[in-house]
């Protein structure tokens, strides 16, 4: 773990799955121009890439920018250098989590967390549990704004309140546990 702190940020990014393309970027701005959520990014997609190149670890990892990515892959199909910005932003998200950063001005990490929690609990996602988890740990009152939508889904039989657990739930736990041993050993 200590090692990663002395390694340059750029190098670290280029070594995580998804981050490999970072050095290919020519700052043409196509990704930013193609991005449907660019206007809510703290730094635009191409700026974030430039900042990684400039080794700005703290600024990048504490930013809410990459959490605004919708994973629509528009940038990825249009990037002339095959940087695969979508994967790069996912990689930055996972690095931010790994290094304990808590980005301000976005609740997306909380949403992702309650999603993963739901998977770990049952082996499948319960959309209801996922949403409850999210609203309870962000702002329970904002759940009120969601009531109309939730009710529509509920009354059309599209939002079961209880979750079905898979039979192989224990197997899944074992796989994840073993994976983390294997990974830790290296």
């Amino acid at each position, binding site marked *: 773990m200590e090692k990663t702190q002395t390694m340059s940020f750029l190098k670290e990014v280029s070594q995580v799955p998804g981050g490999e393309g970072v050095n290919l970027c020519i700052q043409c701005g196509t990704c930013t121009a193609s991005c449907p959520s660019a206007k809510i990014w703290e730094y635009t997609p191409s700026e974030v890439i430039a900042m990684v190149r400039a080794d700005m670890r703290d600024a990048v990892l504490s930013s809410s920018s990459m959490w605004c990515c919708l994973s629509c892959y528009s940038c990825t199909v249009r990037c002339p250098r095959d940087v695969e910005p979508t994967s790069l932003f996912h990689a930055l998200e996972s690095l931010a989590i790994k290094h304990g950063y808590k980005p301000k001005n976005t609740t997306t990490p909380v949403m992702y967390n309650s999603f993963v929690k739901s998977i770990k609990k049952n082996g499948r996602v319960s959309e209801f549990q996922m949403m409850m988890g999210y609203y309870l740990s962000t702002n329970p009152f904002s759940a009120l704004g969601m009531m109309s939508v939730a009710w529509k889904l509920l009354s059309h039989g599209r939002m079961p309140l209880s979750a079905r657990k898979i*039979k192989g739930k224990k197997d899944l736990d074992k796989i994840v546990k073993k994976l983390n041993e294997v990974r830790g050993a290296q």
Partner: protein
Amino acid sequence: MKSYTYFPGCSSEATAVGLDVSSRSIAEALGMELKELEDWNCCGSTPYGSLDELEAIAVAARNLALAEKTGLDLVTPCSSCFVTLSKARVHMMEKPQLKAKVNQALAAVGLEYKGTVKVRLLIEALMSDITAETITSKVKKPLKGLKVAPYTGCQEVRPRFGFDHPENPIALDTIVEAVGADAVPYPSKSKCCGGSAVIAEEGLCIELMYKLLDDAAKNGAECIVTPCPLCQMNLDAYQAKVNSKYNTNFNLPVLFVTQLIGVALGLKQDKLGLKKNIVNPNKVLAKYL
């Protein structure tokens, strides 16, 4: 009859019940045997991959390993599951070290992933194995005169696993025409609706949905079809919110493409989950039901 291993995806048990029932029904009518993957788990999902890519791949790999044992292609009707499972497959194919780690983890429960299973999207299998011509030949109620906006969304075509053009896909248009309806020009056909970001970034996503609905309405569509569970849920369940925010009165039913095919095949409403739709499609479909 061709057989497939079927991966319904988590949303098939909740927001996308309609996709699941209609997929099973049309498959039966078109001579595809879908055998549900036994005790499948969540595909791994984009959020999981963002938080911990390797763990997400291992979770996906349990499904791939189970599916591989059946010797059949793995098909899913869900665009997101398709992307997640394909991504895990390709990562393991391109990075033998990663695959080795995942296999060490799978070995803990006596599974192994060799890398032979094919991951396919249901509508791709429909197009390639069944073909549009066969679908047409089985149509009992041609949807003559119905104006449909073909909304493919982003996941199905954009990441490198897609089978259609990444920005101007045509498979959905072909299917719409194959069942006798008219596919209206729809420039937004592969634009993103925001997906699950609607939970954390509602304002932005409502704006994206407004543009999608507006584009469909402007081009004269009476309904929208999509293969994607999230696109369907967003445009259907949030349509009222779009209306109140933008002062519009869109009333566009959002059908799964499998529901549209089912109507044309003459299948009964309850076999297509049409009652699960929030913007009621009955008026638009009245002539054909």
